[in-house]
């Protein structure tokens, strides 16, 4: 079973994003970028399935500017076999991402697609579900456990009240949640090896996909800041404040 993994180049999780001065977008110049953390989990899961003899080739796909090659090289250094970049300097919103991924799926014919559940930049949490919808495939979102069983996939999902177990008919789309696994650190020799792995590049037009944004950003702004509070000396003062000042207990 071939596995396709989608990886996004996103702002590093340690960086606090700020709006540009003119409110037209988020300041990304000279900001550290990394692979979206949930996508690392997705790549790791694909590799573990391969190591367990349950998956064949792993193809990593990224969509965005030329710099996404770095993200693909990271995925390949982790263990993906090759990379596909759909290169665009324009904004690509989740629906267009899903359409581009579908076009790649049509070419590659994987048995399983794994995505991160959400990118930590736009926090949309849409792409995997949209891709499954476009393909007419089953979807296992927010997965914390994935077990192939013949032509089906057992998925344990993180849901609001606890865990849900479902069985999906393959091929399927899975989105990775936090506890699915802990991604490995990339070792230097593997970084060198990854440079030699094949990486194909397409333009959205090559794949026949219109990526015109459907959502127009009117403005971006910082939320109202919380007024700073006070330090209390001890629990007695804290309880007194909560009872008499805030009146919340």
């Amino acid at each position, binding site marked *: 079973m071939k596995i396709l993994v989608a990886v996004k180049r996103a702002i590093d999780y340690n960086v606090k*994003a700020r709006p540009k001065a003119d409110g037209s977008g988020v300041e990304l110049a000279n900001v550290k970028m990394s692979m979206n953390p949930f996508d690392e989990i997705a790549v790791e899961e694909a590799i573990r399935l391969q190591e367990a003899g349950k998956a064949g080739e792993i193809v990593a796909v990224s969509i965005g500017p030329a710099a996404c090659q770095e993200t693909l090289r990271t995925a390949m250094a982790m263990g993906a076999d090759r990379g596909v970049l759909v290169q665009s300097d324009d904004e690509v919103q989740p629906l267009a991402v899903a359409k581009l991924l579908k076009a790649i799926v049509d070419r590659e014919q994987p048995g399983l697609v794994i995505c991160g559940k959400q990118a*930590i930049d*736009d926090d949309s*949490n849409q792409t995997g*579900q949209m891709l499954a919808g476009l393909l007419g495939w*089953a979807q296992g979102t927010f997965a914390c456990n994935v077990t192939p069983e013949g032509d089906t996939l057992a998925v344990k999902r993180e*849901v*609001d009240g606890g865990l849900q177990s479902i069985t999906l008919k393959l091929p399927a789309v899975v989105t990775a949640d936090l506890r699915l696994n802990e991604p490995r650190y990339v070792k230097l020799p593997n970084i060198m090896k990854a440079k030699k792995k094949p990486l194909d590049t397409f333009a959205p037009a090559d794949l026949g996909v219109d990526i015109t944004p459907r959502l127009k950003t009117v403005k971006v702004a910082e939320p109202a800041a919380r007024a700073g509070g006070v330090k*209390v000396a001890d629990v007695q003062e804290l309880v007194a404040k909560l009872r008499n000042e805030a009146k919340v207990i």
Partner: protein
Amino acid sequence: MTALVIAEHNNQSLNAATLNAVAAASQLSGGFDLLIAGHNCGAVADAAAQVAGVGKVLVADAPHYAHALAENLAPLVVSLAGNYTHLLTASTTNGKNVMPRVAAMLDVAQLSDIIGVVSDDTFVRPIYAGNVLSTVQSTDGIKVITVRTTGFDAVAATGGAGTIEAVAAQADAGLSTFVGEELTKSSRPELAAADIIVSGGRGLGSAENFAIIEKLADLLGAAVGASRAAVDAGYVPNDYQVGQTGKCVAPTLYIAVGISGAIQHLAGMKDSKVIVAINKDEEAPIFQVADYGLVGDLFKEVPALCEALAK
């Protein structure tokens, strides 16, 4: 123009989050209907008909709707979408699972996690862990929306007079099967709906030490939450997680214990009315959002707090 709100329920009662999604729908210029898709869900339909302001209550009752599987629910919503300008649901794990599939099938974008309605086509949503608020305008004919429940005050569960109408079920897609669920059993209030939340972080040091968080929570009648670091470390299950990638909460009182205040945690709780932080590191970022900060060893301060509250 009318909106359709997809209700969340367990086939017996309406999930409170639906009332927040209805609140967002109520701010649009048209009215709204509710969709109840489930199995043997008549009681939910009756409850939905009472929701303040509701027009029609559409009921699709079939065995394959019992567990809100996206592969079955999405085609049903799509079959009804032609009568509506907006499709909304609460940003619960169910809502997040189903709605993007609906949007893709309709070839429209989705607006995730809105916290404000500017007009019928323009909405406010947090991005980058809530550090930035984006105002976005949709150019699509049908707006598919998930609603962050903390952004809208729930409408009244009673006072409405909706008309219940059965709608045809679509065929079982046969792509997915519900096997079972392990729901966290707790006598404490639900995290998303609690008035008071006590959350623990990596500072707790172990799963066993979480007992002091639970003791404090029980004294206050509070729900128990956790930071991603505590979930990562295996102290508590993932459904305790408050933050960008967990649950977003806005209780009256939020007590953060041994939580440093990473960006991703603040994203999930900074809309709380009153925030208390207990942490030994006085430089911890959590103190920047806390109304009341107590610098000290949590293993000393939390038991002392329990004692002071018990008085």
